[in-house]
């Protein structure tokens, strides 16, 4: 983004770019897979569509990206939305139970109606969250906790506590189908991200969201309708979660009220944080969130691929996340290799990128060793 005439400052600008560390970690995680899966980066045609690890990561990561993008805006207003996992479950349950009641499950009109129904329910959940937060002045974490707990019960009620299996080709497309040899979900994600970026960065909306997150009262005093903005972001977040819910249920052609989207809210918050959005609000990065979500999905895939024993899955994940968060912290970087790096930059006029990348590499690779012992 920012470039300057001399090499050292260009390198410094690069490392200081808010996307540098998330992207570096993502690349590193992808590279870790190579010794375990030699053709990790290869993509081939199978069954009429592209097939490979990278395609799987994007396919399985799509719902998380969507949820995290919605979460980003909520967090930018200084809020948080814990209900997204439950909204995922409700949307999937509603859509699938509607489709399973149809005589012709493959009928496009029925499928569209089912999806509309699911998304409507999602938006209503978002409206409720926004109402509680903006109008009633309830702490976001408490307000959204209500649907987080109750929503999953509602989803189970809709599915009668069973897993509803459907057999509908058009519905399968959104989360498990392919279009132009690519997973269709990629296009959905691209569209949602593009619309979000356009709305927040090409119009004043993003600025308003940040203003509300920075200081809701001050922004109200300068004439921003901060309550309305808040309600809007919660509705948008729920809509994103709803689309993710359709994707997750479509991916397995089944609605599982118990497990669909379980703990996705935590992964989404993590993705937002890894992407460099401040939990205090007032500043956000959609691009960072997308990278953050990809980091989390890649991490999950890596755990499956490199054969981490199941008991240590979460420890491994935690170790990597800690390292990523520490790398994100300018204070930590300054303390640990700040002095050394700064001296080197000053003397040599910029180290090679490869050498710089070696340090985080050592840090992340040390993580699994730590928890194995």
């Amino acid at each position, binding site marked *: 983004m920012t470039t300057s005439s001399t090499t050292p400052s260009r390198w410094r600008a690069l490392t200081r770019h808010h996307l540098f560390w998330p992207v570096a970690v993502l690349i590193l995680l992808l590279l870790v897979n190579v010794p375990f899966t030699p053709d990790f980066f290869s993509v081939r045609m199978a069954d009429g569509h592209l097939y*490979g690890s990278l395609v799987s990561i994007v396919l399985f990561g799509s719902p998380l990206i969507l949820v995290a993008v919605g979460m980003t805006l909520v967090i930018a207003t200084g809020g948080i939305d814990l209900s997204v996992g439950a909204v995922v479950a409700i949307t999937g349950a509603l859509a699938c139970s509607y489709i399973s009641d149809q005589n012709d499950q493959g009928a496009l009109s029925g499928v569209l109606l089912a999806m509309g129904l699911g998304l409507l329910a999602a938006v209503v959940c978002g409206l409720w969250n926004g109402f509680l937060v903006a109008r009633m002045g309830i702490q976001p974490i408490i307000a959204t906790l209500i649907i987080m707990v109750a929503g999953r019960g509602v989803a*189970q009620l809709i599915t009668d*506590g*069973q*897993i509803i299996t459907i057999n509908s080709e058009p519905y399968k497309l959104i989360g498990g189908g392919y279009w132009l040899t690519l997973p269709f979900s990629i296009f959905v994600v691209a569209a949602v991200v593009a619309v979000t970026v356009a709305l927040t960065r090409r119009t004043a909306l993003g600025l308003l969201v940040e203003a509300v997150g920075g200081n809701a009262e001050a922004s109200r005093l300068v004439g921003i309708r901060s309550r309305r903005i808040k309600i809007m972001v919660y509705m948008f977040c729920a809509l994103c979660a709803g689309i993710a819910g359709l994707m997750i249920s479509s991916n397995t052609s*089944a609605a599982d009220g118990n*497990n669909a989207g379980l703990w996705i809210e935590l992964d989404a918050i993590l993705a937002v944080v890894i992407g460099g959005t401040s939990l205090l609000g007032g500043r956000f990065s959609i691009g960072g969130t997308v990278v953050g979500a990809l980091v989390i999905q890649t991490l999950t895939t890596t755990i499956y*691929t490199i054969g981490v024993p*199941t008991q240590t899955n979460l420890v491994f994940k935690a170790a990597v996340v800690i390292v990523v968060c520490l790398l994100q912290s300018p204070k930590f970087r300054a303390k640990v290799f700040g002095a050394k790096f700064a001296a080197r930059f000053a003397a040599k006029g910029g180290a090679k990128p490869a050498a710089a990348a070696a340090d985080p590499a050592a840090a992340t690779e040390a993580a699994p060793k730590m928890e194995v012992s």
Partner: protein
Amino acid sequence: MLNRRNFLTAAVGVAAAGGLAACAKKDDSSGDSGSSGGSKTITLGFSQVGSESGWRSANTTSVKDAAKEAGYKLQFSDAQQKQENQISAIRSYISQKVDVIAFSPVVVTGWDAVLKEAKAAKIPVVLTDRSVETSDDSLYVTLVGSDFTDEGRRAGKILEKVLEKAGHKGPVKIAQLEGTTGAAPAIERAKGFKEVMDADHKADWKIVVSQTGDFTRAGGKQVMAAFLQSNPDINVLFAHNDDMAIGAIQSIEAAGKKPGKDILIVSIDGVKDGFVAMSEGKINAIVECNPLLGPQLMDTVKKVKAGETVERWIKTKEGDFMQDQAKAALPSRKY
């Protein structure tokens, strides 16, 4: 994990049981006749764990239906995953002077006090599905439930048959989809399967990858997708439950392979959708883990009440199913 939903499980449980009861028909394997034989109706107090899964709601329905069929009076309570609820339910059964108390314990320990009260009141206690650890073995009469280790062994044995039927030659490279980490069924099924492998197939079978799919379809699908990338030469899949196998099948198909042919699949549980997949040729064999233990429980209750001695562990009647039996068995699957 389930705690946060505790206060909802009651409502959901009622709905789930209601939904199931509506479609549940006559129990097929009921051994005893409708009459209880004695002059007085037997009253059974039953405390269920909760209603966390389809398996559990099928279990509840089976107990209720079987009690009705046997003509027993059933006092049913749902513990919503809480031991204190279960203990107070058992205490109320004691004060009501029911004939027999049965329950699926939420946790393994902490039952001595309440079971001693039952013993003092001379009410026999039957455990279902899960066991307890007590200081005094006389505190309960018997356990009616599945043997998860044996299910793992049966999965190993049936894989021999599957391989033979498929005419498989060469090394057997197995991918294992484990259940929720730390859950008894996951640990014991893996253990049983490994026993068979170590005993008879040390040379030719090998588990090349093993990872948890959390007993869910989405988990099975995602983990299998990663397995197929890192180990493209997998030729057998052993899934700890049908749902994970169903998810994995979708990943296998996405990789352009044929489930049931290129990769032979053995799974445990025997839920309806598993049988549907097997009748389509996508699962090769299913080892049943039967939640429908109501009839066996009623049978045991009758014997216990009559003062007959029963075995310490009455294992649930369970079958192993190969593909050719799938179509015939499908209509009888009700969960």
